[in-house]
C-alpha cells in the first residue's frame, strides 16, 4: 500500500485513492495518475521484457511514444495486450500484467537469448533454418512463433462496441499544449468553428509536466484557464482523450476518442471508443516533440529514461523514478530536469553533459565534456559509468538516469501523404518539410519551436494565417509571458563502446546491428529498417529512428538529410482494429433488406437465407418434415400440381419513362425492344460492353413512354448504375428518366395450374385475366381487393402458368395473407428460394450461377438475341474471334444416371478421356433434385454442347472424391414447348 516514491504536490487527487494490481501485486495510486506514474510512485521499475533478447525493460517516457512499458491490461475477453502504461489512466480495480516472459518477469528463461546475442544479430534468420527443408514448418517456425509476439489476445470476441462519428470544422487543432491552446483561443475568439483534440485526459501538453509559469501563473493553471474560456464558446469543441491518428486526402482527419478506456467497463450501450472522421477546412498540428535518448553500452536498463519524462513524473504526478538520479544531456534542457528534481528534494547525482561548454548548475555537479559509457544493475539501474572529459572513468550510484539527447518534433502527421521532413541543424532534428498534406499547418514544438513563449506565439500566428486562407479574420492578442530559452544542443548520438548500445528498445536493435547492416550493404534507410527492424515497433521509430539514421550517416559519410528517413504512416499511435469497424460488425456488418412478406414468413416458421442484402424465405417447413429436401420437394410438386406463391419483391425494378424510353431500352438490351407493344412484357438480355452477359430480366411496356425493367436480385444496384451511365454519359440525347421502384412494390409470383383461379378471387372484376384477355407475357395496371392499385404480369420463372402480382409495399403483408386465403381451396403452398431454384433449373432458366461474368449470349444459346441491326451495348465486342469459336461452351441440361448425383462445380469429361486439365470440357453450374422428374438434374456448360444432346459424359469432383455419369439433355427439362406457360 505504500507508495514509496510518492512526493508532495503534483496534479493528482489524493482524496481519490485507487487500487490496482500489477502482476498480481495489489498497489495504490490516485486519480490523475497514469498506470505509469502509479508504477513509478510504487517504486516499480521493471515492467516488461524486450522482443528478441528478453532484456528487462522499464518505462522510458511519459507519453504515447512509450516503447517499453507495454502490459496486458484487463482480463477475460477485455484483455488488451501491448497497452502502454503511459497512456493508461488509472482506474479503481485496474488489472495489469507484464508480458513476453516465462515463468516470471523477474526470472525469464527466454532471456537466454540475450546470452546468445552474438548469433542473433540483424537478419540472422535469413541465413539459417533452411535444412532439412521440411523443418521450417515442423520445427523452426513453431518455436520462433511461440517466442515472438509480445502480449496475447484473449482469444475471445471483443465484448465492447465502437462508434463512428463525423464532425466538421473550420480549424482542427491537434494537441492542446501551449501552441494548440493559444491557437484555439485565437480561432475561438474569432468565431471560427474549432475542434481541439488532445490525446491526454488533461489539457496543457508539456505545461502539465513543467514547473515554469505562463502569464504569471503556473503553466498548468494557465492551461486550465484557457480550457475554461474555450468551454464557454459554442463554436469550440474540446475533445480530450482523443488522438488524431491519420491525415487523409482533402482535409479528412481520423480522430480516435477513448470514451471509456479510463473506466473498468464501458457503460451499457455506450462505446469504448469512437472513430471520428473530422472534415476540417484547415488543420494545425501542435503535437509537440519527443525527447530522444543517447546510445551507450547497456543504455536499456530500467531506470534509464527521457529526462523530460523524469521531471514530468515528478512535477505532474509527484512520482520520483528514484531517490538518486543522474542526468545525461547534450543540451540545456537536461539542466531543467536537474532544477525540478532538486526542487522536489531528489538527490541529483550529477549532470553529465557531453558539451565542453555546458552551463553551470546550482543544484548539482556538472561533468562537462563527459559521457555515460555504460550502466550496471540487476533488473534495473544501479550505477552508471561516466567517461570523463580528460579520460578516465567515474562510477555513479543512481537509481535512474535522465537522458536528454535533444527533441524530435512530432512531424508524423505531416508525413502521412509521403512528404519528407527536412533536417534543421540548430536543433539537430527533422522538422516538417514541404509536401505535407494540403491544408495542414504546423505550430510550436512540432516544427522545432521549443520554448513556451515561442510555441504560444507560433500557435497564434499559425491560427491567424490558416483562418485567413478560408476568409476568417482573427485578431492577435497579447501573449502571456513565458520562458523563451534555447536548448543549445550539440549533437551527440552515441557513445562508442564495445558492448551493445540500444536504439530500438522494443525490437532490440542496437548500434551493432546498424553496423552489420552497413557491412552487408543494407544501407538505404528502407533496407536498414527492413533488415534490422529499426523503427518497426509500435512507436514507429519515434524513440529510435533518428539515432539509427545518425549512425548510418556516420558509417556512409553522408549527412542525416542525405541519409533520409523512412515514411511515417498512419496511425500515429497504435489503434484498436475494433474502432475502425465501428458498429458495422457481426449481424450489423451490412444492413438487411426484408421483403414485404417477411413478418408473415416468420409466423410460418420459414427458414431464411441471405440473398445478397436480402433475407429471403428459403423454404417453409411443415410439421413432420425433418429434412430440407422434404419441404422443398413438397413446395415444388404443389406448385406444379396446383398453385404456389413466392415473394419475388427482391428483383430489381427500374421505372423508365420519357420520350426516348423505348430507344433507351432498345440500346441497353441486346435484343429488340423498340417494337414491344404497350401492355406486353419481353425477356431482355443485357450485355456489358465487352460482350459478356451482365444481367437478364423481363421488361414491361406500361405505356408508350413508360417501361418497367426488372433485374436479378443480385444485380439491381449495378444495373441501375449502368443505366444512369448510359443515360447521362452515352445517350444524353434521349429524353429518359429513371427511378428505382424496387422497394415500392410487394411482388408475388403465383404459379401453377390454379394460379389464375386464385388470382381471380382478388383481382377486381372489371379486369379480365383470362388466357384470351391476358395472355402469356401480358402486363397491365389493375386494381385488386376493391380498388387497390396493382400491377399484373403474366410471366413465369417456374415454367408453369403463372403471374406476378404487385401491390404497393405497405399492402404486401396483407396481400400474402389474402393470397393464402384465396388459395386455400387449392391448397396453395408458399415456396421459398430453394423451390424457386429447383423449378428454374427444371425450366432451364439461368441465374447468377450461370451468368458468372465470362458467359456470352452465344454460350447460353442465345446468340440470335444479339441484334446486329441496331446499336446496343456489347454487340460489337461479342463478335471477337475467341467468343464466336465453334467449339465454345454451350449451356446444356444434365441428368444424372445410375443413381449418381449432379454436383455443381464438377468438371465435365467425355467418356474415355483422361481426367486432367487438358481434357476438361466444361463444368456444372447448377444442380437440383427434381421431384417432378424424380431425378438429379442440373445445368452446365460444355464445349459444343448444343450438338451433344444425348451424349453421356462424366462429371468429376475430385475435390470430394466423387464422380457421376450424366446425360446431356436440353436445358428445358419441363414443358420445352411452353404449353403450360400459355395455358
Amino acid at each position, binding site marked *: 500500500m505504500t507508495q514509496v516514491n510518492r512526493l508532495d504536490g503534483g496534479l493528482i487527487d489524493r482524496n481519490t485513492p485507487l487500487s490496482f494490481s500489477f502482476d498480481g501485486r495489489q498497489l495504490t495510486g490516485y486519480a490523475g495518475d497514469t498506470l505509469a506514474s502509479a508504477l513509478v510512485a510504487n517504486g516499480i521499475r521493471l515492467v516488461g521484457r524486450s522482443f528478441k533478447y528478453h532484456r528487462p525493460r522499464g518505462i522510458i517516457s511519459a507519453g504515447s511514444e512509450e516503447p517499453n512499458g507495454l502490459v496486458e491490461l484487463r482480463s477475460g475477453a477485455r484483455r488488451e495486450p501491448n497497452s502502454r502504461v503511459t497512456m493508461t489512466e488509472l482506474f479503481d480495480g485496474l488489472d495489469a500484467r507484464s508480458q513476453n516472459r516465462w515463468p516470471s518477469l523477474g526470472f525469464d528463461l527466454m532471456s537466454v537469448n540475450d546470452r546468445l546475442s552474438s548469433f542473433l544479430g540483424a537478419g540472422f534468420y535469413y541465413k539459417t533454418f533452411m535444412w532439412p527443408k521440411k523443418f521450417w514448418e515442423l520445427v523452426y517456425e513453431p518455436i520462433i512463433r511461440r517466442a515472438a509476439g509480445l502480449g496475447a489476445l484473449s482469444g475471445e470476441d471483443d465484448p465492447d462496441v465502437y462508434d463512428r462519428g463525423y464532425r466538421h470544422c473550420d480549424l482542427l487543432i491537434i494537441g492542446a499544449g501551449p501552441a494548440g491552446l493559444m491557437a484555439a483561443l485565437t480561432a475561438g475568439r474569432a468565431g471560427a468553428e474549432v475542434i481541439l483534440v488532445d490525446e491526454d485526459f488533461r489539457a496543457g501538453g508539456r505545461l502539465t509536466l513543467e514547473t515554469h509559469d505562463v502569464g504569471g501563473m503556473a503553466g498548468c493553471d494557465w492551461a486550465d484557464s484557457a480550457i475554461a474560456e474555450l468551454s464557454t464558446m459554442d463554436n469550440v469543441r474540446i475533445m480530450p482523450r482523443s488522438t488524431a491518428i491519420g491525415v487523409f486526402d482533402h482535409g479528412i482527419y481520423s480522430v480516435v476518442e477513448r470514451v471509456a478506456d479510463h473506466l473498468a467497463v464501458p457503460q451499457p450501450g455506450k462505446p469504448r471508443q469512437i472513430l471520428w472522421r473530422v472534415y476540417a477546412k484547415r488543420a494545425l498540428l501542435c503535437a509537440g516533440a519527443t525527447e530522444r535518448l543517447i546510445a551507450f553500452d547497456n543504455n536499456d536498463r530500467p531506470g534509464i529514461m527521457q529526462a523530460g519524462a523524469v521531471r514530468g513524473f515528478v512535477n505532474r504526478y509527484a512520482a520520483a523514478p528514484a531517490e538518486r538520479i543522474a542526468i545525461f544531456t547534450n543540451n540545456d534542457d537536461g539542466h531543467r530536469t536537474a532544477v525540478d528534481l532538486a526542487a522536489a528534494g531528489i538527490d541529483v547525482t550529477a549532470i553529465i553533459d557531453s558539451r565542453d561548454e555546458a552551463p553551470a548548475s546550482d543544484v548539482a555537479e556538472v561533468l562537462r565534456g563527459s559521457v555515460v559509457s555504460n550502466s550496471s544493475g540487476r533488473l534495473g539501474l544501479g550505477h552508471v559509468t561516466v567517461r570523463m572529459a580528460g579520460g578516465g572513468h567515474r562510477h555513479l550510484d543512481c537509481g535512474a538516469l535522465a537522458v536528454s539527447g535533444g527533441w524530435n518534433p512530432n512531424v508524423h502527421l505531416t508525413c502521412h501523404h509521403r512528404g519528407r521532413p527536412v533536417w534543421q541543424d540548430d536543433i539537430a532534428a527533422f522538422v516538417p518539410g514541404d509536401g505535407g498534406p494540403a491544408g495542414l499547418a504546423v505550430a510550436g514544438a512540432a516544427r522545432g519551436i521549443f520554448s513556451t513563449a515561442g510555441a504560444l506565439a507560433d500557435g497564434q500566428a499559425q491560427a491567424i494565417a490558416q483562418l485567413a486562407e478560408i476568409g476568417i479574420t482573427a485578431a492577435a492578442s497579447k501573449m502571456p509571458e513565458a520562458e523563451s530559452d534555447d536548448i543549445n544542443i550539440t549533437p551527440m548520438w552515441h557513445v562508442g563502446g564495445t558492448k551493445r548500445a540500444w536504439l530500438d528498445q522494443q525490437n532490440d536493435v542496437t548500434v551493432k546491428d546498424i553496423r552489420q547492416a552497413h557491412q552487408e550493404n543494407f544501407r538505404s534507410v528502407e533496407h536498414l529498417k527492413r533488415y534490422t527492424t529499426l523503427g518497426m515497433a509500435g512507436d514507429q521509430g519515434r524513440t529510435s529512428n533518428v539515432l539509427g539514421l545518425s549512425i548510418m550517416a556516420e558509417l556512409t559519410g553522408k549527412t542525416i538529410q542525405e541519409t533520409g528517413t523512412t515514411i511515417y504512416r498512419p496511425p500515429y499511435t497504435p489503434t484498436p482494429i475494433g474502432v475502425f469497424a465501428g458498429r458495422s460488425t457481426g449481424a450489423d456488418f451490412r444492413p438487411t433488406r426484408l421483403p414485404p412478406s417477411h413478418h408473415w414468413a416468420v409466423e410460418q416458421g420459414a427458414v431464411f437465407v441471405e440473398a445478397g442484402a436480402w433475407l429471403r424465405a428459403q423454404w417453409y417447413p411443415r410439421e413432420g418434415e425433418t429434412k430440407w429436401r422434404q419441404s422443398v420437394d413438397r413446395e415444388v410438386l404443389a406448385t406444379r400440381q396446383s398453385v404456389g406463391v413466392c415473394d419475388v419483391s427482391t428483383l430489381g425494378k427500374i421505372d423508365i419513362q420519357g420520350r426516348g424510353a423505348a430507344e433507351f431500352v432498345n440500346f441497353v438490351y441486346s435484343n429488340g425492344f423498340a417494337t414491344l407493344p404497350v401492355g406486353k412484357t419481353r425477356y431482355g438480355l443485357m450485355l456489358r460492353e465487352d460482350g459478356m452477359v451482365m444481367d437478364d430480366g423481363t421488361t414491361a411496356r406500361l405505356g408508350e413512354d413508360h417501361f418497367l425493367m426488372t433485374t436479378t436480385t443480385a444485380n439491381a444496384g449495378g444495373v441501375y448504375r449502368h443505366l444512369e451511365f448510359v443515360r447521362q454519359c452515352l445517350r444524353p440525347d434521349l429524353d429518359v*428518366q429513371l427511378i428505382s421502384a424496387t422497394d*415500392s412494390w410487394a411482388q408475388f409470383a403465383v404459379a401453377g395450374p390454379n394460379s389464375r383461379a386464385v388470382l381471380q378471387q382478388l383481382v377486381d372484376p372489371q379486369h379480365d385475366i383470362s388466357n384470351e384477355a391476358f395472355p402469356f407475357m401480358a402486363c397491365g395496371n389493375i386494381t385488386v381487393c376493391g380498388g387497390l392499385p396493382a400491377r399484373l404480369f403474366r410471366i413465369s420463372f417456374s415454367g408453369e402458368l403463372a403471374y406476378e402480382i404487385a401491390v404497393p409495399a*405497405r399492402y404486401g403483408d396483407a396481400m400474402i395473407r389474402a393470397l393464402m386465403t384465396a388459395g386455400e381451396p387449392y391448397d396453395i403452398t408458399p415456396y421459398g428460394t430453394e423451390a424457386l431454384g429447383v423449378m428454374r433449373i427444371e425450366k432451364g432458366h439461368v441465374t447468377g450461377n450461370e451468368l458468372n461474368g465470362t458467359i456470352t449470349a452465344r454460350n447460353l444459346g442465345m446468340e440470335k438475341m444479339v441484334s446486329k441491326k441496331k446499336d446496343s451495348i456489347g454487340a460489337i465486342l461479342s463478335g471477337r474471334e475467341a467468343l464466336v469459336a465453334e467449339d465454345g461452351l454451350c449451356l446444356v441440361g444434365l441428368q444424372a444416371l445410375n443413381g449418381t448425383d449432379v454436383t455443381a462445380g464438377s468438371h465435365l469429361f467425355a467418356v474415355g478421356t483422361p481426367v486432367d486439365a487438358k481434357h476438361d470440357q466444361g463444368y456444372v453450374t447448377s444442380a437440383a433434385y427434381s421431384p417432378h422428374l424424380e431425378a438429379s438434374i442440373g445445368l452446365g456448360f460444355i464445349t459444343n454442347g448444343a450438338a451433344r444432346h444425348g451424349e453421356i459424359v462424366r462429371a468429376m469432383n475430385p475435390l470430394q472424391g466423387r464422380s457421376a455419369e450424366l446425360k446431356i439433355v436440353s436445358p428445358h427439362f419441363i414443358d420445352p414447348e411452353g404449353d403450360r406457360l400459355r395455358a
Partner: protein
Amino acid sequence: MPRLTPTTALGGTAPRIDEIGGLRITEIADPSLAALAMRAKKNAAFTKAAKAAFGANLPAPNTAAMTDRHAVIWMGPDQYLVEANSADASLAGTLADNFGSAASITDASDAWVRFDLTGSDNIAMLERLSAADSRSMTAGTATRTPIHHMACLILCREAGASFSIYGPRSSASSLHHALITAAASL
C-alpha cells in the same frame, strides 16, 4: 373479396415511437410521396407547372421547398421528391395532371421509410450516423447521404431541433436499429 390493410415499413399496424434520453424517434406510418422528374427540354413548362402545383419555386440543390402542403425535395438534377404534408393517396395522380408531358411522375410513397427525429440531442446523434454536417443545417436543408451503408436522405425541418430521415423501405428495420443504437450510445 378481402380489404387489404397496410402495415408500416417496420411491419407494424401502428407507427413505432422510441424515446431514448432526450430524443424521440417516430416512424411515420404512411408518407405520401411522389418522384418528379423533368422531361428533356421542358424547362419552362416544368417550372411553370411546379409554381402552380406548389406555389413555390423549385428548390435548389441540397434544399427542399417547404410549403403548407408540400415539401419539394431536390433529389438530383431535374429530379425531386414531393412529400405531401398530410396523407394524400392521389398525390402522384394529381401531379401527373399538373405537369402533363413536362414531367415523369412515379408514386414513391412505398419506396421509403421515414423517421422523424426530435429532441435536444439530435445533432449529437446525427453526427454518429452520417457525414452530413447536421450542425449547420437550417430548416429546408435536404441531404442525401449514407447511414450505415444505406442510401438515406436527411431533411432538416427546424435547425438543430427537428429532422426527418428517409431510408429505403426494405431496410427499415436496419435503419431503425441504427437510429436507436446511436441514440442509446450518446
